[in-house]
């Protein structure tokens, strides 16, 4: 039973009909006795008077600390933060208002926790960036100062003020003041809340058995955590099974796969499902209910399994860009191939081979084209089937192209190699060496402007001559000379595309970036977490990464999940409905609105020996939507943290002529 702390106390002295032990008189059996009906009408009549809907639980004597962030100029270049502080100091209840360059920094957070202790603050407001970034940070800071974290209010004056009203500093400043006044009003009605604790299922689901999934599963299992690893293919390894040697170590990719898959298969903590697909995901952190279906059901395999897991690691990887038919003559000319196809060709060519051949044709000159399907520009490139341009850099193709170019020059010194790039992005440790070595080995580089990519043609001289194809380029290295290079083969440096996981994205309500890859909460502060609590990112599902980066991300995701499992319970925000028993009359209006089975019901409870009916919330099932709130004629049900009186107070703070003043509602005549 969700009981309000002082719900049954007789705190409303002026209004006995609605309080304490008298409430059964007010509305215990509203419809069926004359006395009750009369009493109910009294209640209704009282409700009609303004005073009853004015919440009586507003705390008047407050000591609120307001902290305004400059965000290193992001806010203070537009909003006059000093004036904001001066003005909000005048709002009744505000004990202190301070400005800091970065409130989220350690010194900024210390300032808050120290002030709570030294200045006896009982409420805190921080006006800074969006709450999605630092609401949790500042809840932590106020907790460390000994204050209940839900007596904290966040005001967004960066995304929704300084950045959005850059050319209106006066207006942005006034808005910041009003928004803070609103937050102070909301805090007047705030109550300390406790997080809801639910059991944490100490088992993780890893979706995807590529190098990221294997690494995450192995790391988690090494910490003693049970893992369910689900892969759609019949073997582990993912894309790595298609590569030959990985840069910069030049180890065979198969060795890496073998090493990791041995760890995965032999660890008793890991259960591996190969040839399975996740079909359902529901629930929340600590308590995800998942279902998987077998892609090839057989006598030995059940068609479907269900499981409960506490965390989900997304390691579904990427999908290589496949050029459109005719793009650089791909699928028109057999000797125009993609980078993965070329790697396969090199791998299947015997180490003793003297010649490089493709479809019985000897390759004497080969061209590599960078940025095929990456760094696409509006107006230059055609959007894909989904209408999207891949504007991002795929990050791995430059080094892979140079690795392959160098391999060609070393294995077949008589084969000429021509490289067409916008610029070379060999950014990682040891990767620049490939560029230096390729240059030394005689690879010829051409550089084009992104708006004028090279074009591939069939040479008029025909297939028998030296080069059936040619690459035409406006070369920036020779000040824009238009050159044509005859070659036998063109390798398209294709990049990465987001994997096809729309159904998972849909079911789990995951955020994707403009590029279609899954989007982390924050690129620097929370790089492997998704906005859905308990769902983590490992590898190229998040965007193009090389193998080292993928392994780092997978390791980080495993650590994040392990840290989450270190706690016995999962703590959820207490934003669920709560019934004010001193106001509830058991009329069940709210129950008719609730769409969640079991979340809200009418129960009989005993008060002073008499049975009365009241609404009751099941906090584990309530989602906190508030559908019940709007229909209660007695304002007897509210969503904690988002109470109706709090919203009314916020509007008052925003709308008042002067911050801190009341609007006096309709009593004010402005005409």
């Amino acid at each position, binding site marked *: 039973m969700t009981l309000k702390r002082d719900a049954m106390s007789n705190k409303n002295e002026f209004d006995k009909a609605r309080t304490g032990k008298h409430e059964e008189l007010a509305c215990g059996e509203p419809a069926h006795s004359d006395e009750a009906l009369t009493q109910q009408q009294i209640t209704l009549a009282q409700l009609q008077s303004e005073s009853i809907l004015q919440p009586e639980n507003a705390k008047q004597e407050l000591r609120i600390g307001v902290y305004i962030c400059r965000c290193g100029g992001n806010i203070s270049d537009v909003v006059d933060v000093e004036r904001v502080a001066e003005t909000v100091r005048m709002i009744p209840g505000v004990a202190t208002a301070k400005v800091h360059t970065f409130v989220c920094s350690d010194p900024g957070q210390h300032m808050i926790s120290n002030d709570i202790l030294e200045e006896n603050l009982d409420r805190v407001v921080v006006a800074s960036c969006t709450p999605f970034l630092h609401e949790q940070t500042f809840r932590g800071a106020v907790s460390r100062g000994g204050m209940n974290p839900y007596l904290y209010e966040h005001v967004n004056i960066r995304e929704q003020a300084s950045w959005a009203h850059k050319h209106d500093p006066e*207006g942005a400043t006034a808005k910041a003041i009003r928004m803070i006044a609103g937050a102070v009003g909301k805090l007047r009605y705030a109550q300390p809340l406790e997080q809801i604790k639910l059991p944490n299922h100490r088992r993780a689901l890893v979706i995807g058995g590529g190098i990221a999934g294997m690494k995450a599963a192995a790391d988690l299992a090494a910490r003693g955590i049970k893992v369910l690893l689900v892969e759609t293919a019949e073997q582990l390894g993912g894309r790595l099974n298609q590569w030959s040697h990985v840069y910069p170590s030049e180890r065979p990719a198969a060795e890496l796969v073998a090493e990791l898959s041995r760890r995965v298969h032999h660890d008793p903590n890991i259960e591996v499902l190969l040839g399975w697909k996740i079909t359902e995901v529901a629930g929340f952190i600590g308590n995800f209910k998942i279902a998987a279906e077998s892609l090839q059901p057989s006598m030995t395999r059940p068609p479907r399994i269900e499981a409960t897991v506490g965390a989900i690691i997304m390691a579904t990887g990427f999908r290589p860009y496949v050029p459109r038919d005719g793009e650089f003559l791909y699928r028109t000319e057999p000797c125009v191939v993609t980078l993965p196809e070329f790697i396969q060709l090199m791998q299947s060519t015997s180490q003793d081979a003297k010649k490089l051949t493709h479809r019985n044709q000897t390759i004497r000159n080969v061209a590599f084209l960078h940025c095929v399907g990456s760094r696409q520009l509006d107006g230059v490139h055609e959007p894909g089937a989904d209408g999207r341009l891949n504007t991002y850099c795929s990050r791995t193709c430059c080094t892979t192209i140079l690795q392959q170019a160098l391999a060609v020059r070393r294995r077949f010194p008589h084969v000429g190699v021509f490289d067409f790039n916008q610029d070379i992005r060999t950014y990682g440790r040891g990767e620049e060496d490939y560029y230096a070595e390729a240059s030394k080995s005689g690879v010829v580089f051409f550089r084009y402007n992104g708006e004028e990519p090279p074009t591939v043609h069939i040479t008029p001289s025909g297939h028998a001559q030296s080069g059936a194809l040619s690459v035409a380029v406006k070369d920036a290295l020779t000040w824009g000379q238009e050159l044509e290079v005859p070659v036998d083969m063109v390798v398209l440096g294709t990049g990465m595309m987001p994997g096809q996981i729309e159904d998972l994205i849909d079911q789990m309500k995951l955020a994707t970036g403009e590029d279609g890859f899954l989007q982390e909460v924050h690129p620097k502060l929370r790089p492997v977490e998704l906005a859905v609590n308990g769902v983590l990112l490992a590898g190229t599902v998040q965007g193009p990464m090389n193998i080292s980066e993928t392994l780092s991300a997978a390791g980080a995701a495993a650590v994040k999940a392990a840290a989450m499992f270190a706690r016995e319970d999962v703590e959820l925000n207490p934003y669920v409905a709560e019934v004010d028993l001193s106001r509830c009359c058991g009329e069940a209006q709210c129950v008719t609105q609730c*769409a969640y089975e079991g979340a809200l019901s009418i129960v009989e409870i005993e008060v002073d020996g008499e049975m009365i009916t009241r609404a009751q919330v099941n906090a584990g099932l309530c989602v906190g*939507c508030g559908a019940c709130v*709007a229909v209660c004629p007695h304002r007897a049900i509210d969503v904690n943290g988002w109470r109706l009186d709090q919203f009314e107070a916020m*509007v008052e703070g925003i709308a008042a002529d002067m911050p801190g003043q009341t609007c006096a509602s309709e009593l004010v005549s402005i005409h």
Partner: protein
Amino acid sequence: MSEAFVPKILVLATEKCAYPGADAVGKAHQEYPSNVYILRVPSPVLFPEDFYLDCYGKGIDGVLIAACGSDCPYHGAYEQLAARIDQLTSHMNAGGLGIERIRLTAICTVCIKAFLKEIALMSDNLYRLGRVDRKLAGQLRRESLNRLQGSVRALDLAPALQGGL
């Protein structure tokens, strides 16, 4: 009172969709007028009719309900909300506040253009309509509260209360 009229626009923005959508506008450094105040809400379904009328009574000139639409994370909440706003709008219209001071729309997390368009539309309407009649809004709010309380008598409580629990 001699100051030029600048309408106060309140945006009730859902935590899952429209609020991050409004953030995206700022992140993209797109601008809109500073007299637009955005409140983060789990779902606007929690507001009764009288809340909106209270906003007008307090001097808010226009309310834009920026919801999740079909992406609403709560079962049935968007439909319930839409039905309520329908009712509210007809009450506002009948009561003389008109229908242009309120608008229900869906804004997604990346709907920058839609957000700016809705703000511009509401802003244009409000400059044309002028200040909200706060007294009238207060009157309508009282009527709305009466209706809410009347709903108790109208509701058939038999299944919940008569047949035992």
